[in-house]
């Protein structure tokens, strides 16, 4: 099958790739797992909003307010379509981290009788693969409510160990929150059995889709999940906008997290009632330009085709894994093949600390992530102090992998190991 993603052409849409890096090198951006670069179309959409339509949405009767409203709600439709969700289920937040915190605090505010109410004896299930953003909110919710936090372990190959599925997700379980794809290892978690078991015991399933939604097609109905979070800035969008999706019925049953303007139905000095979802979860004037920028980003991705993007990244990862296997004293941490694996490669170089690897790569114009990747428990489990991580996206090609591999050899030479 021909590769339908042409990074050389795509790069022309991204102004940042004309920047000259340290050492006079071109930018080899291999840190999209942390944040993606932004195409002109996204920057233009934000600018266009501020220059021509800026007004506070959901209030005001003037022309600008109407236009702002239309653009913002139009953006909501784009995001909803992107994950096959209904419009009323799609909440804009400031980040995926806020989305997950909103869920955990909302659940924590639940009253006895609610399906989300937690008390000692109840159980929350996570995994050792989690990014801190999908661990700490649940860990702290467990502490506040007395619920028990348990977790799926990771196999030495970096896969989620599902052998204790029925034991972990038991009748006392209320919430299961799992990542779709590890930000450290690239492992994609097969969800079918976990989601089925979650529903069998009457619990809700929360998916952290930060590392998956930008890279392959997500269909919340087909996945049969209950909640999903992802961030705009990892999907070509601006910072300051995240997504919280939840089933309408659940969103309506939930308590709000942030309260204030926009999210109310009526207010007196002593009491308030809430608007319907999604507004119930969007207190205050939202990050409008960012939501509109995100819609432009998702349109950009959709035009390329999520299937094409996934294929491109799979081929590039396969190429990189082959190249890495030929390197001396370099170990890939995580799955060594492209089955259920995204375009993220964590690795260690013998006798060179990840920060020092990253520093040398920087000299070649290569941007990677180093350290524990906000997944400290996973690092400890794997017995590592950190890794160097290269993550690929639509604008990367084989020449970027070649540059990386050459620079790793350069680091080994520099440190004489």
């Amino acid at each position, binding site marked *: 099958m021909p590769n339908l993603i042409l990074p050389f052409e795509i790069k022309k849409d991204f102004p940042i790739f004309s920047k000259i890096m340290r050492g006079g090198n071109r930018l080899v951006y291999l840190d999209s797992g942390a944040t993606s670069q932004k195409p002109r179309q996204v920057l233009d959409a934000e600018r266009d909003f501020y220059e021509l339509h800026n007004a506070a949405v959901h209030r005001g009767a003037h022309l600008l307010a109407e236009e702002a409203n239309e653009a913002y709600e139009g953006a909501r439709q784009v995001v909803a379509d992107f994950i096959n969700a209904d419009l009323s289920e799609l909440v804009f937040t400031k980040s995926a981290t806020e989305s997950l915190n909103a869920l955990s605090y909302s659940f924590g505010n639940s009253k006895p009788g609610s399906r989300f109410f937690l008390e000692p004896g109840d159980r929350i299930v996570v995994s050792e693969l989690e990014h801190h953003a999908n661990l700490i909110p649940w860990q702290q919710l467990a502490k506040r409510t007395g619920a028990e936090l348990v977790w799926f372990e990771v196999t030495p190959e970096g896969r989620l160990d599902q052998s204790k599925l029925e034991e972990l997700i038991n009748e006392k379980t209320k919430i299961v929150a799992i990542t779709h794809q590890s930000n450290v290892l690239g492992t994609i978690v097969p969800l079918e059995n976990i989601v089925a078991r979650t529903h069998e015991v009457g619990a809700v399933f929360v998916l952290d889709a930060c590392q998956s939604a930008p890279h392959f097609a997500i269909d919340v109905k087909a996945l049969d999940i209950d909640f999903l979070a992802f961030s705009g800035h990892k999907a070509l969008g601006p910072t300051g906008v995240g997504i919280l999706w939840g089933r309408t019925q659940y969103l309506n049953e939930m308590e709000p997290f942030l309260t204030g303007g926009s999210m109310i139905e009526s207010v007196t000095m002593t009491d308030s009632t809430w608007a319907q979802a999604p507004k119930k979860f969007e207190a205050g004037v939202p990050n409008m330009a960012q939501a509109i920028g995100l819609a432009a980003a998702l349109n950009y991705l959709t035009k390329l085709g999520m299937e094409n993007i996934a294929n491109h990244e799979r081929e590039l990862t396969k190429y990189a894994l082959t190249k890495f296997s030929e390197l001396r004293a370099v170990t890939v941490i995580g799955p060594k093949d492209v089955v259920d694996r995204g375009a993220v490669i964590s690795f260690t170089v013998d006798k060179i600390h*990840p*920060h020092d690897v990253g520093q040398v790569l920087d*000299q070649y114009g290569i941007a990677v992530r180093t*350290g524990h990747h906000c997944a400290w428990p996973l690092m400890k489990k794997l017995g590592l*102090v950190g890794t160097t991580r290269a993550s690929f996206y639509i604008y990367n090609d084989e020449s970027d992998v070649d540059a990386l591999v050459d620079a790793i050899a350069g680091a080994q030479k520099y440190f004489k190991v």
Partner: protein
Amino acid sequence: MDLDSLYQEVILDHYKNPTHKKLSPTYSAQVHHVNPSCGDEITLNVTIESGLVKDVSWDGVGCSISQASTSIVADLMIGKEVDQAFQTVEAFSELMASKGTSVGDEDILEDGVALAGVSKFPARVKCALLGWLAFKDAALQSSDKQGEI
């Protein structure tokens, strides 16, 4: 290459052969410092007697800069008056904040001046400071304890 100003031979020597990297069984204060953003960790023991730094020892994991810097600070502080030690930490902090404009005073910082190049790489300054701030913390705690006696 810019890298050479960061990774001076002195630093790589300290990294490969760190000094005082074995925690002493006794100490007047022990601290554990981490760089939360990157996972560098050190434990550092200080023994202070009569206003004099008698011993500094440490153990830890981290990048070449953090480990070499801790090795340098341990070696540098032993035998110093506590006040003088604090002034030295201050001088090093100023060097790290200099954004490449200072070479550091070798009379005060000795091997520490090899870290001057770090100040050109803002992301690495915290690596270089880890051991120094751990020492300062331990020395302060130790002085507090002696004050109580």
